[in-house]
């Protein structure tokens, strides 16, 4: 179905996800009082969920 001729959309999508993930992971580190390994892992996971939803939301609104 989709021919991978143009790598730019993929690149842009991953850049957007990465930017959101970085911002949200930073936010998590700001929220917490003490940082340890488990805290970092959980924060990275939650930031990933947030990043995916941020992109999904933006796409859903731009859709029409």
């Amino acid at each position: 179905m989709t021919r991978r001729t143009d790598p730019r959309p993929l690149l842009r999508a991953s850049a957007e996800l990465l930017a959101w993930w970085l911002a949200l992971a930073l936010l998590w580190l700001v929220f917490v009082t003490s940082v340890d390994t488990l805290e970092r892992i959980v924060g990275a996971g939650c930031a990933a969920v947030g990043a995916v939803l941020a992109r999904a939301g933006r796409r859903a609104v731009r859709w029409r």
Partner: protein
Amino acid sequence: MNRLRLWLLAVGGTGLAALLVAACLDLPRFGGRSHPYGDRAVHASLRRHIANTIASVNFDQRAYDTLGEMSILFAAVLGCVVLLRQTRDEHRAPPEPAEVARPVRRYALLVLPVALVTGLYVIAHGQLSPGGGFQGGVVAATALHLLYLGADYGALERVRPLGVYETTDALAVSSYVVLGLAGLLAGTAFLANTLLPYGTFNTLSSGGTVPLLNAAVGMEVAGAATVLLAHFLDQAVEIEDATEEEPGK
């Protein structure tokens, strides 16, 4: 009839007020120093390395009650789903897309992930700082509905496959029960917090099963609130019965 009712209310209300005031005057005085149950609860919580005593009471000392509370929430959502289902004489009319000012739309899109991560933070740190599964779950579910407020219902429906949230809701309740049964299998009691090590005080892994139960409640509440709001939104926005006129006509 109406006047009679008001008289009845006045008499009953005055009587109740008198009784309540008498009871208030007899209560231990506000701000008193004697809280025997509270002191013991704090002691028990510290013994299990849980920094937030309220989380300890909810998910350790009274974990069985929290199971009841969860099933109340689950049953209430089930009741709402049944009450608000689409009946045969109703039809769905997709709403027209709304026109929302650009700053509002951008605000909604930017705050959505921030609110979601805040909700997850409140859930994850339930046994440390103020917060917990219930509060964080509601925040996460509310965050999702920013999409309805900032754009339109169609946008929300695209990122909200309802089946996933219904499954999450059910899975979370059953995982709470499974965690309880694990205690039973380990040879102690249902929902007894003796399964996992208590960890270092004031870290994310402290408190044995409390963080896990907290996460289960958080997932359940987030799923339940989303499903609940979805059915109310369906009723208010999409579903019309046969007598209602379509907006386009």
